[in-house]
């Protein structure tokens, strides 16, 4: 009998307690955002689409080697002085935004950008080509010497 009464008391009291919490929430402002009109501020370290600043790229292929899903394609032509980078492409279909490619880069030219909304209808469009005409790979030492000379 005592249990019966306490049970009923428990039931009612917990229901009212719950209602109280719910009522408190009713007065709170919604926390949702109206994407895409409203956007949240991206943190500095946000890992968005990988970007390569080609003029500073030494075409050392370290990034391609570090990538766990092999989605960086680098092609080269020629030897020694005539070496040219003919292709630097990233296949974002495969990229898992892990940032492993950015760590070994000697010139820090490959970075995680803040872009993220690049939805497309065709998969081919997610293979980004960074090199048009063949480019001469960046030589950090030479660049440093030139800078010194200028100064």
């Amino acid at each position, binding site marked *: 009998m005592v249990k019966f009464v306490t049970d009923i008391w428990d039931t009612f009291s*917990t229901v009212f307690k719950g209602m109280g919490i719910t009522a408190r929430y009713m007065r709170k402002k919604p926390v949702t955002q109206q994407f895409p009109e409203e956007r949240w501020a991206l943190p500095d*370290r946000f890992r968005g689409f990988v970007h390569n600043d080609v003029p500073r790229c030494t075409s050392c292929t*370290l990034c391609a080697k*570090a990538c766990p899903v092999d989605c960086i394609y680098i092609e080269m032509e020629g030897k020694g002085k005539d070496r040219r980078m003919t292709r630097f492409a990233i296949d974002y279909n495969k990229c*898992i935004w892990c940032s*492993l490619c950015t760590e070994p880069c*000697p010139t820090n030219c490959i970075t995680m950008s803040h872009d993220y909304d690049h939805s497309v209808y065709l998969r081919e469009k997610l293979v980004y080509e960074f090199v048009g005409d063949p480019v001469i790979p960046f030589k950090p030492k030479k660049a440093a010497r030139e800078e010194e000379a200028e100064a």
Partner: protein
Amino acid sequence: MSRRALEHIASEIGADVVETSDELGDASVTVRPSALHRTLEFCRDDPRLRCDLLLDVIGVDYPDRAERFDVIYSMRSLSTGERVRVKTRVADGEPVSTASDLWNSANWAEREVYDLYGVPFSDHPDLRRILTHHEFKGHALRKDYPIEKGQMCYVPEKLLTDEEIRFGPQLYGRTMDRSDAVVEEEEISSDYLTVNLGPSHPATHGALRIEALLDGETIIHSKSEIGYLHRCFEKESEDHTWQQIIPYTDRLNYVSALTNNVGYVLAVEKMMAIEVPERCQTIRVLVAELGRIMDHLVCVGTNLVDIGALTNFWYFFNAREHLYTVVERMCGERLTTSYTRIGGLYRDLYEGFEDELRHSLGKVEEAIGEVTALVQRNRIFMDRAVGIGAISQEDAINWGWTGPCLRATGVDYDVRKASPYGGYETYDFDIPVGENGDVYDRVLCRIEEMYQSIGIVNQAMDRLKPGPIFSEDRRVTMPPKDEVYNSIEGMMNHFKLVFEGIQVPAGEGYGFSEGANGELGFFIVSDGSGNPYRIKVRPPCFPIFSSFTELVKGHMVSDAIATLGGLNIIAGELDR
């Protein structure tokens, strides 16, 4: 200690012991296949060893050897925290005697070895494929199975056999009250209904399938099928460098990716005997506990949704959002964090981290308080949860349970306390335990664990002192950039680390940590090259889910859903 265990085993088994080793503090003994069962039984029952928990059964393939496969039983004693591995070597096609009569957890674990290596187990009650499709040809983890070879499989597996459906009542000890009618045997089956729960059902929280034989609303028998999310984590690992595996560990338990990241690097560092700086260690503890809090928030929240308490889910997800904001600012991603590195971390904490985290933890505590107030004594919730999916301590251990689900039965076993790693011995926290091992206790255990984790995070924040986050060890850490530019050794070191990868010394080891669901283990075999020879994950929810059939037998369908939610099955981790 492990040496003494080896002596006990050697004196009991005698001439059938082929080899013993106590590498990295774990006793490992190789026995002849004929003595395997005897050895396992001895390890389980001997009062000095008491290996009551079978962690995992592991296969390793050495194609150049006549006895091609290693089958390894990895055990742990709950009382001493000690680990013992019993190994046997068999040729292709040679059967291994099953251990499923000793531990229920051996059932699925052996099926996995059978599936991926093709090692048959004699007297196994249910030797079928488990992770790959039943039409799959070959065995995926054998070294000669090409990694890129896919197969098309179409026909879904029929889990319950015709016989089980037809003779369900007799087989599972239910007699129907049909005193008023004379029924033909043929007709009996028509009263039982088979229903598929899943593979894509919102209440299964991941792709898994349960085929249940129902008598009205009551489940009289069920079988589960997993593997829908099998992504060949272990096969892929053998094709990647050690560092490249880190992003893949995010995707094991994607709800607590941080905890997994930490578990994996700890295992590799154990193999290499690397000490990380104090700051790195503290941050790792901190983020691992954050992962645990986030995991429990999701688990409890979704479990409550399954029972019908939707608002709690929003309250928890709102709190989790605050934590995710901090995590995102810390490592740039919310879910797939990849935050740790072998020998260090991806980045140091950012400025203002502590204030933001304290603020977020305050929000989490607020949410937990609200949810506790809403459900703890709530009549509807208690009616749905008390006594549902209950399991006894002995059964839970026999099924290989660990983590909050085991603690809900009253066993105060936590890897962080039993065999501390990564500095946990210096933190002050309690292990909450339940009593009955039912859904209700699991929810309350997890809630209390969150409070404990918040305590650990606060302690870790108080200890944070400025300092390096990377180990100085040049075997794992890239040299600073100016060294790369200006010295030939630095450059060689840098290129070698990227092109050849980190070189883990040859040998085998078992690294473990307390994941959000229980003991998360990484069994590693290295041949000294830049890629792992074999990595075997011990996902905590694999043994837990293997007992699901037993847990829900005789319960209603809706109770099965409540039970499933409380077990916190993460399909990514279950299927790897």
